[in-house]
Protein backbone atom coordinates (compact mmCIF):
# COMPACT_ATOMS: atom_id res chain seq x y z
CA UNK A 1 0.00 0.00 0.00
CA UNK A 2 1.41 3.24 -1.10
CA UNK A 3 0.79 5.74 1.66
CA UNK A 4 0.33 8.60 -0.78
CA UNK A 5 -2.47 6.73 -2.56
CA UNK A 6 -4.20 6.16 0.75
CA UNK A 7 -3.94 9.83 1.62
CA UNK A 8 -5.22 10.92 -1.78
CA UNK A 9 -8.26 8.64 -1.46
CA UNK A 10 -8.87 9.86 2.07
CA UNK A 11 -8.61 13.47 0.98
CA UNK A 12 -11.06 12.89 -1.88
CA UNK A 13 -13.50 11.20 0.47
CA UNK A 14 -13.20 14.02 3.01
CA UNK A 15 -13.84 16.62 0.33
CA UNK A 16 -16.96 14.77 -0.85
CA UNK A 17 -18.19 14.55 2.73
CA UNK A 18 -17.45 18.23 3.24
CA UNK A 19 -19.52 19.00 0.15
CA UNK A 20 -22.45 16.83 1.19
CA UNK A 21 -22.34 18.17 4.71
CA UNK A 22 -22.37 21.72 3.38
CA UNK A 23 -25.43 20.85 1.28
CA UNK A 24 -27.48 19.76 4.26
CA UNK A 25 -26.12 22.43 6.56
CA UNK A 26 -26.85 25.62 4.72
CA UNK A 27 -29.89 27.54 3.61
CA UNK A 28 -27.89 29.79 1.32
CA UNK A 29 -28.20 29.18 -2.39
CA UNK A 30 -24.67 30.39 -3.17
CA UNK A 31 -23.22 28.13 -0.53
CA UNK A 32 -25.04 25.20 -2.06
CA UNK A 33 -23.20 25.88 -5.28
CA UNK A 34 -19.95 26.08 -3.32
CA UNK A 35 -20.77 22.69 -1.83
CA UNK A 36 -21.11 21.20 -5.30
CA UNK A 37 -17.81 22.78 -6.32
CA UNK A 38 -16.07 21.24 -3.32
CA UNK A 39 -17.36 17.82 -4.30
CA UNK A 40 -16.19 18.38 -7.85
CA UNK A 41 -12.69 19.11 -6.57
CA UNK A 42 -12.65 15.64 -5.09
CA UNK A 43 -13.73 14.14 -8.41
CA UNK A 44 -10.96 16.01 -10.24
CA UNK A 45 -8.47 14.61 -7.77
CA UNK A 46 -9.84 11.11 -8.30
CA UNK A 47 -9.57 11.38 -12.07
CA UNK A 48 -5.92 12.46 -11.94
CA UNK A 49 -5.23 9.85 -9.32
CA UNK A 50 -6.68 7.21 -11.64
CA UNK A 51 -4.44 8.44 -14.43
CA UNK A 52 -1.42 8.34 -12.14
CA UNK A 53 -2.22 4.80 -11.05
CA UNK A 54 -2.84 3.26 -14.45
CA UNK A 55 -0.16 5.27 -16.19
CA UNK A 56 -2.49 6.85 -18.71
CA UNK A 57 -1.94 10.41 -17.53
CA UNK A 58 -2.46 12.01 -20.94
CA UNK A 59 -6.00 10.67 -21.20
CA UNK A 60 -6.81 11.59 -17.64
CA UNK A 61 -5.65 15.17 -18.26
CA UNK A 62 -7.98 15.53 -21.22
CA UNK A 63 -10.80 14.32 -19.01
CA UNK A 64 -9.94 16.88 -16.37
CA UNK A 65 -9.80 19.72 -18.84
CA UNK A 66 -13.17 18.91 -20.36
CA UNK A 67 -14.61 18.46 -16.93
CA UNK A 68 -13.34 21.85 -15.79
CA UNK A 69 -14.96 23.57 -18.75
CA UNK A 70 -18.28 21.97 -17.93
CA UNK A 71 -17.88 22.66 -14.23
CA UNK A 72 -17.44 26.36 -14.93
CA UNK A 73 -20.52 26.48 -17.11
CA UNK A 74 -22.61 24.73 -14.48
CA UNK A 75 -21.32 27.12 -11.84
CA UNK A 76 -22.17 30.13 -14.00
CA UNK A 77 -25.67 28.85 -14.75
CA UNK A 78 -26.24 28.05 -11.09
CA UNK A 79 -25.02 31.46 -10.00
CA UNK A 80 -27.22 33.04 -12.67
CA UNK A 81 -30.29 31.23 -11.40
CA UNK A 82 -29.43 32.12 -7.82
CA UNK A 83 -29.07 35.80 -8.73
CA UNK A 84 -32.37 35.76 -10.61
CA UNK A 85 -34.01 34.16 -7.59
CA UNK A 86 -32.51 36.90 -5.45
CA UNK A 87 -34.13 39.46 -7.71
CA UNK A 88 -37.50 37.76 -7.34
CA UNK A 89 -37.39 36.92 -3.64
CA UNK A 90 -35.11 39.56 -2.22
CA UNK A 91 -32.85 36.99 -0.58
CA UNK A 92 -31.02 33.77 -1.27
CA UNK A 93 -32.69 31.66 1.39
CA UNK A 94 -33.69 28.19 0.27
CA UNK A 95 -36.63 28.20 2.67
CA UNK A 96 -38.26 30.80 0.48
CA UNK A 97 -38.51 28.24 -2.28
CA UNK A 98 -41.87 26.78 -1.36
CA UNK A 99 -43.94 27.37 -4.46
CA UNK A 100 -43.74 23.75 -5.51
CA UNK A 101 -45.37 21.35 -3.13
CA UNK A 102 -47.33 18.19 -3.42
Amino acid at each position, binding site marked *: *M*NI*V*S*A*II*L*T*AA*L*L*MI*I*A*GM*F*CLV*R*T*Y*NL*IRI*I*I*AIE*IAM*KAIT*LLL*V*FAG*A*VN*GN*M*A*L*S*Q*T*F*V*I*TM*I*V*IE*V*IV*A*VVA*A*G*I*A*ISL*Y*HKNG*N*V*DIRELTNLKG
Partner: protein
Amino acid sequence: MQQFFIVLCLVLMVVAGGAAVMLRSMLKSTISLGVASALLAAVLFLLGAFWAAIFELSVCSGLITVVFVSAVSLTNSDRKDEEHVKEHRARVAALPAILIFAGASLLFILFSHDFNIVISSTPASFAAFKEALWSLRQSDILGQIIAILAGTFAVIVLFKERDNI
Protein backbone atom coordinates in the same frame (compact mmCIF):
# COMPACT_ATOMS: atom_id res chain seq x y z
CA MET B 1 10.32 14.81 -0.95
CA GLN B 2 7.74 15.09 -3.71
CA GLN B 3 5.50 12.79 -1.73
CA PHE B 4 5.81 15.01 1.29
CA PHE B 5 4.66 18.01 -0.72
CA ILE B 6 1.74 16.07 -2.15
CA VAL B 7 0.60 15.10 1.33
CA LEU B 8 1.10 18.61 2.64
CA CYS B 9 -0.92 20.14 -0.19
CA LEU B 10 -3.70 17.56 0.28
CA VAL B 11 -3.95 18.29 3.99
CA LEU B 12 -4.08 22.00 3.33
CA MET B 13 -6.68 21.46 0.60
CA VAL B 14 -8.95 19.55 2.94
CA VAL B 15 -8.51 22.27 5.56
CA ALA B 16 -9.39 24.94 3.01
CA GLY B 17 -12.39 22.94 1.86
CA GLY B 18 -13.54 22.58 5.44
CA ALA B 19 -13.11 26.29 5.92
CA ALA B 20 -15.27 26.96 2.85
CA VAL B 21 -17.99 24.95 4.51
CA MET B 22 -17.67 26.25 8.04
CA LEU B 23 -16.80 29.94 7.65
CA ARG B 24 -19.77 32.19 8.24
CA SER B 25 -18.81 34.96 5.90
CA MET B 26 -19.72 34.06 2.37
CA LEU B 27 -16.86 36.10 0.98
CA LYS B 28 -14.30 34.30 3.10
CA SER B 29 -15.73 30.95 2.24
CA THR B 30 -15.60 31.77 -1.45
CA ILE B 31 -11.95 32.67 -1.11
CA SER B 32 -11.29 29.43 0.79
CA LEU B 33 -12.75 27.57 -2.11
CA GLY B 34 -10.35 29.37 -4.43
CA VAL B 35 -7.46 28.46 -2.15
CA ALA B 36 -8.55 24.82 -2.06
CA SER B 37 -8.69 24.88 -5.82
CA ALA B 38 -5.18 26.34 -6.07
CA LEU B 39 -3.85 23.69 -3.69
CA LEU B 40 -5.53 21.03 -5.81
CA ALA B 41 -3.73 22.47 -8.81
CA ALA B 42 -0.46 22.06 -6.93
CA VAL B 43 -1.32 18.41 -6.20
CA LEU B 44 -2.12 17.82 -9.84
CA PHE B 45 1.19 19.40 -10.81
CA LEU B 46 3.08 17.21 -8.39
CA LEU B 47 1.29 14.13 -9.70
CA GLY B 48 2.47 14.99 -13.19
CA ALA B 49 -0.72 16.37 -14.71
CA PHE B 50 0.75 19.67 -15.87
CA TRP B 51 -1.94 20.74 -18.29
CA ALA B 52 -4.74 19.84 -15.97
CA ALA B 53 -2.97 21.76 -13.21
CA ILE B 54 -2.73 24.88 -15.34
CA PHE B 55 -6.40 24.68 -16.22
CA GLU B 56 -7.38 24.09 -12.63
CA LEU B 57 -5.34 27.04 -11.47
CA SER B 58 -6.50 29.53 -14.06
CA VAL B 59 -10.10 28.46 -14.56
CA CYS B 60 -11.22 26.97 -11.29
CA SER B 61 -9.34 28.97 -8.75
CA GLY B 62 -9.41 32.08 -10.90
CA LEU B 63 -12.59 32.27 -12.93
CA ILE B 64 -14.93 30.43 -10.62
CA THR B 65 -13.80 32.50 -7.65
CA VAL B 66 -14.57 35.63 -9.63
CA VAL B 67 -17.99 34.25 -10.50
CA PHE B 68 -18.72 33.47 -6.88
CA VAL B 69 -17.45 36.76 -5.56
CA SER B 70 -19.62 38.65 -7.99
CA ALA B 71 -22.59 36.41 -7.19
CA VAL B 72 -22.09 37.03 -3.47
CA SER B 73 -21.82 40.77 -3.91
CA LEU B 74 -24.77 40.88 -6.31
CA THR B 75 -27.01 39.01 -3.93
CA ASN B 76 -25.85 40.79 -0.80
CA SER B 77 -25.84 37.48 0.98
CA ASP B 78 -22.64 37.97 2.91
CA ARG B 79 -24.20 38.79 6.23
CA LYS B 80 -27.49 36.96 6.07
CA ASP B 81 -26.02 33.52 6.14
CA GLU B 82 -24.95 33.79 9.77
CA GLU B 83 -28.44 33.69 11.23
CA HIS B 84 -29.36 30.62 9.31
CA VAL B 85 -26.48 28.51 10.41
CA LYS B 86 -27.35 28.76 14.06
CA GLU B 87 -30.85 27.31 13.90
CA HIS B 88 -29.52 24.31 12.23
CA ARG B 89 -28.45 21.99 15.01
CA ALA B 90 -30.55 19.07 13.87
CA ARG B 91 -28.96 18.85 10.49
CA VAL B 92 -25.49 19.29 11.95
CA ALA B 93 -26.12 16.23 14.09
CA ALA B 94 -25.99 14.15 10.93
CA LEU B 95 -22.27 14.83 10.66
CA PRO B 96 -21.01 12.12 13.04
CA ALA B 97 -23.17 9.54 11.29
CA ILE B 98 -21.78 10.51 7.90
CA LEU B 99 -18.23 10.45 9.23
CA ILE B 100 -18.62 7.05 10.83
CA PHE B 101 -20.10 5.60 7.65
CA ALA B 102 -17.39 7.15 5.53
CA GLY B 103 -14.64 5.98 7.88
CA ALA B 104 -15.99 2.46 7.85
CA SER B 105 -16.12 2.31 4.09
CA LEU B 106 -12.64 3.79 3.84
CA LEU B 107 -11.25 1.18 6.22
CA PHE B 108 -12.96 -1.45 4.15
CA ILE B 109 -11.29 -0.17 1.01
CA LEU B 110 -7.85 0.30 2.49
CA PHE B 111 -7.53 -2.91 4.45
CA SER B 112 -9.16 -5.44 2.21
CA HIS B 113 -6.78 -8.23 1.34
CA ASP B 114 -4.02 -7.87 -1.24
CA PHE B 115 -5.15 -4.41 -2.14
CA ASN B 116 -2.21 -2.35 -3.22
CA ILE B 117 -2.25 0.90 -5.11
CA VAL B 118 1.05 2.26 -6.30
CA ILE B 119 1.37 5.51 -8.14
CA SER B 120 3.47 4.44 -11.02
CA SER B 121 3.08 7.09 -13.66
CA THR B 122 5.65 9.25 -15.24
CA PRO B 123 4.47 12.69 -16.29
CA ALA B 124 2.80 12.66 -19.69
CA SER B 125 4.67 14.32 -22.48
CA PHE B 126 3.02 17.17 -24.32
CA ALA B 127 2.92 15.12 -27.49
CA ALA B 128 1.04 12.33 -25.80
CA PHE B 129 -1.38 14.82 -24.30
CA LYS B 130 -1.97 16.48 -27.65
CA GLU B 131 -2.51 13.14 -29.30
CA ALA B 132 -4.97 12.13 -26.62
CA LEU B 133 -6.92 15.36 -26.73
CA TRP B 134 -7.13 15.91 -30.46
CA SER B 135 -7.28 12.53 -31.97
CA LEU B 136 -8.88 10.38 -29.30
CA ARG B 137 -11.35 12.73 -27.72
CA GLN B 138 -13.11 14.34 -30.62
CA SER B 139 -16.51 13.81 -29.10
CA ASP B 140 -15.36 15.62 -25.96
CA ILE B 141 -14.20 18.55 -28.00
CA LEU B 142 -17.55 18.68 -29.75
CA GLY B 143 -19.11 18.42 -26.31
CA GLN B 144 -17.07 21.36 -25.07
CA ILE B 145 -18.20 23.46 -28.02
CA ILE B 146 -21.83 22.61 -27.41
CA ALA B 147 -21.47 23.17 -23.67
CA ILE B 148 -20.01 26.60 -24.29
CA LEU B 149 -22.91 27.35 -26.63
CA ALA B 150 -25.31 26.22 -23.90
CA GLY B 151 -23.53 28.47 -21.41
CA THR B 152 -23.82 31.40 -23.78
CA PHE B 153 -27.54 30.93 -24.22
CA ALA B 154 -27.89 30.49 -20.49
CA VAL B 155 -26.23 33.82 -19.87
CA ILE B 156 -28.46 35.42 -22.50
CA VAL B 157 -31.60 34.01 -20.92
CA LEU B 158 -30.65 34.58 -17.30
CA PHE B 159 -28.92 37.94 -17.48
CA LYS B 160 -29.39 39.79 -20.70
CA GLU B 161 -33.12 39.52 -21.10
CA ARG B 162 -34.04 39.49 -17.48
CA ASP B 163 -35.21 43.06 -17.36
CA ASN B 164 -37.46 42.73 -20.38
CA ILE B 165 -40.03 40.73 -18.50
